[in-house]
């Protein structure tokens, strides 16, 4: 302990003597170019205001982006291109963000494979969201889609092409022509099977030419909020344990989802909902967190994703009786029905006793009826994954699969321009200085259910929207509003407390308790009593955070500390998710309840509207959930906000009135 204090005193002494420079350790950082000496006109000052044990370096930027995935990079690139001195703070090297896992593609109504119209894409997305999506944001996204794809191509993304040289587009679930009446649409553009990687590589490479300052392997701790305005971010540099405050008039949160609250999810271990938690701790709401998308085919146990493309190539789902059960649940689309429909069907089969395996708790994905050459050529990645993580040879045996947490439709509420909003006195109110985009945000374009290949589109369109909004309302070099000298002190104190925590429960134990509870109580099928029990258990588990025990007391590359900070973030996301789910007494999109099986809208849309009386706001469920958490007690408060039903231009693109959703 004494040696640690001596070391940190040494560190602070070294840092103070290099007033303008980076702490000594980082000067030898081989990734020097990321620092760009703190941007064009920064004086990196070292201050003692927070704590003498933790040297604090202050930076000033025109804009700070937290997260370097598809959305974060697009925002950072857009801001740098517009002349803003931009910092991008990320806990991972940009090309290692979870976006790299995306292999599907980006939807855009380019019309290369057949005649297409973005209004049809608009209709598909509104229907896919089960009418919980805000139609102005969906209008914005689908109308911008073709231009966004062309723009990416101009940046250098090598989209796969047809023989005529046009961008190749493939089919994907939920996409149709002529407002659902014209058959399957082909509007998913891709870069072979590495669309996510190409997006990251292209945006990262281009943004460096505009002199964006990257702070890689910095863990963002909290937002610096004062008087309801966001004035920047405070972060921990993992390389040398120093604290950095990034002051800025514009902060963009692009930190991704929070799949890791569940025991089984397809997400990397980096999906810990850091942005959502930062916003919650700032007293702001998160929206629609109960809507968690379950991908039908994740490998049982490990959770690794088996792509929807398998079913596109002819793979089928079978139960213990060897029956292709999707024929019963979705006679037309069968195994290619919308993800929530397939997940629900699989869960019903398991609950009715037709599951496979010793505990009858999963189903099989059968591929061995396909010719081996097709498997080798079209789906080679699946063969490896199945062998390594499930021990299965796909040419001989079926793969054990289970609906697995895949995406979070909910997140930080924003308007269609990317500005974070709060809902007070019955109105949306913009939070000054704060923006959000990507999976972390909830614009809301995906509503209650996301369509495949709409996520990468969401990243680029709203990443760009944040940059455009900031550029239109602010100028580079704007004077920063004043900030208290000890801003961020609480965050550092919390981190210090975690670093020296010596309670009775290890981080991994608390994390496992949380994950198992969420998996058992808030998974695909939800019912009142089980959710209520889960809420009580989660509230207790939240309290156990006080008894956390960490073992690594160091400050440099302390993985234990980072994973404990991530656990705190996950916990905030988990309690909001389960409480929101327990309160929502209907089934909509990805939120399916056994005790409330139907959608409860303001009218009953399964019958003619004439003669029906519109239900008041508090008696139907076509509304967004806003959840707040009192950090000290862990108590979750819920509020509701209406869905935006009008498009941006009713004459150009009329909104889609709610209807019964069937495929």
């Amino acid at each position: 302990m004494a040696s640690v204090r001596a070391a940190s005193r040494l560190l602070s002494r070294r840092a103070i003597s290099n007033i303008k420079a980076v702490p000594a350790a980082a000067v030898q950082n081989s990734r020097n170019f990321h620092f760009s000496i703190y941007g064009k006109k920064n004086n990196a000052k070292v201050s003692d205001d927070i704590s003498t044990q933790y040297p604090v370096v202050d930076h000033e930027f025109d804009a700070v982006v937290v997260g370097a995935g598809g959305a974060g990079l697009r925002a950072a690139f857009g801001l740098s291109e517009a002349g803003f001195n931009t910092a991008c703070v990320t806990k991972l090297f940009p090309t290692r963000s979870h976006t790299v896992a995306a292999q599907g593609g980006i939807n855009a109504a380019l019309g290369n494979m057949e005649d297409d119209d973005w209004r049809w894409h608009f209709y598909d997305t509104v229907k896919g969201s089960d009418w919980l999506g805000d139609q102005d944001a969906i209008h914005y996204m689908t109308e911008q889609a073709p231009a966004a794809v062309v723009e990416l191509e101009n940046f250098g993304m090598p989209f796969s092409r047809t023989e005529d040289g046009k961008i190749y587009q493939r089919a994907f679930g939920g996409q149709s022509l002529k407002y659902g009446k014209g058959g399957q649409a082909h509007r998913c553009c891709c870069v072979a099977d590495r669309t996510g990687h190409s997006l990251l590589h292209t945006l990262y490479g281009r943004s460096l030419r505009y002199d964006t300052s990257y702070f890689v392997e910095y863990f963002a701790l909290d937002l610096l909020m004062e008087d309801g305005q966001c004035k920047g971010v405070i972060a921990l540099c993992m390389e040398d344990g120093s604290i950095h405050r990034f002051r800025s008039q514009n902060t963009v949160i692009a930190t991704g989802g929070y799949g890791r609250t569940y025991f089984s999810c397809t997400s990397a271990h980096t999906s810990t909902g850091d942005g959502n938690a930062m916003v919650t701790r700032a007293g702001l709401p998160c929206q629609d967190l109960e809507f968690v998308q379950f991908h039908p085919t994740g490998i049982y146990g490990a959770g690794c994703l088996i792509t929807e493309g398998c079913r596109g190539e002819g793979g089928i789902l079978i139960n213990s009786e060897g029956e292709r059960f999707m024929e019963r649940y979705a006679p037309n689309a069968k195994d290619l029905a919308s993800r929530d429909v397939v997940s629900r069907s699989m869960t019903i089969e398991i609950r009715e006793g037709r599951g496979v395996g010793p505990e009858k708790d999963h189903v099989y994905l059968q591929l061995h009826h396909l010719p081996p050459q097709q498997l080798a050529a079209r789906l080679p990645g699946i063969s490896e994954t199945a062998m390594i993580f499930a021990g299965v040879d796909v040419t001989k045996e079926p793969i054990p699969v289970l609906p697995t947490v895949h995406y979070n439709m909910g997140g930080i509420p924003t308007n269609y321009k990317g500005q974070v909003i709060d809902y007070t006195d019955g109105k949306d109110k913009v939070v000054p200085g704060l923006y959000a985009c990507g999976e972390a945000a909830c614009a809301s374009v995906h509503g209650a259910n996301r369509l495949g290949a709409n996520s990468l589109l969401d990243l680029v369109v709203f990443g760009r929207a944040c940059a455009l909004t900031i550029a239109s309302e602010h100028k580079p070099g704007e004077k920063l509003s004043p900030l208290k000298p000890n801003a961020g002190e609480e965050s550092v104190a919390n981190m210090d407390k975690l670093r020296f925590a010596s309670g009775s429960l290890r981080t991994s134990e608390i994390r496992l308790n949380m994950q198992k509870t969420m998996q058992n109580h808030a998974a695909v099928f939800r019912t009142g009593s089980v959710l209520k029990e889960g809420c009580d258990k989660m509230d207790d588990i939240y309290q156990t955070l006080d008894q956390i025990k960490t073992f690594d007391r160091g400050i440099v590359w302390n993985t234990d500390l980072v994973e404990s900070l991530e656990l705190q973030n996950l916990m905030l996301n988990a309690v909001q998710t389960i409480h929101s789910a327990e309160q929502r007494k209907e089934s909509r999109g990805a939120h399916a309840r056994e005790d409330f099986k139907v959608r409860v809208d303001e009218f009953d849309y399964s019958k003619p509207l004439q003669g029906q009386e519109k239900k008041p706001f508090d008696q139907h469920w076509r509304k967004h959930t806003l959840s707040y958490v009192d950090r000290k007690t862990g108590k979750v408060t819920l509020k509701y906000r209406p869905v935006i039903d009008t498009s941006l231009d009713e004459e150009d693109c009329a909104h889609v009135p709610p209807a019964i959703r069937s495929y």
Partner: protein
Amino acid sequence: MLSGLVAKRLVTGLCQASWRPAITGMVSSRGYRGDAPDDNKFDLIEIPLPPWLEKPDEPINIKRRRLLYESRKRGMLENCILLSLFAKRYLNTMTESQLLQYDRLINEPSNDWDIYYWATEAHPTPEVYQGEVMDMLKEFTKNRNHEQRLDAPSLEYLEKESQ
């Protein structure tokens, strides 16, 4: 024949400067998703990222701690599980030269999937990454003992090792 080898080494050498795909037949036919034509990799060629540089002055114990974090936090779940299990087995006993090889392997490639394909031998490993550590990783991936690999391990093993 000889000039062919020289040419190949030249090309691979060129590829070391910035991560460009070696023109050694690494065509990505792996791609599922329907009839998408092959990948021309123009983004990797036209937009080179700054080169990875080793950190010669980093103390070896700090290097191990950094590589532990970088093994556990990857772009997709498959690599998270594989590399954190690999790190659990080998990281604390690697020699300095092995650590350097590992550092390069997990930090230089821009596409995390490539590391996975090389480890599973679905794609040939580029020459620049071949070596002792890559062989260890390939062998580890084969999982000859059929260990259950359901998730990345928690950090408890580090605590036990330090006791």
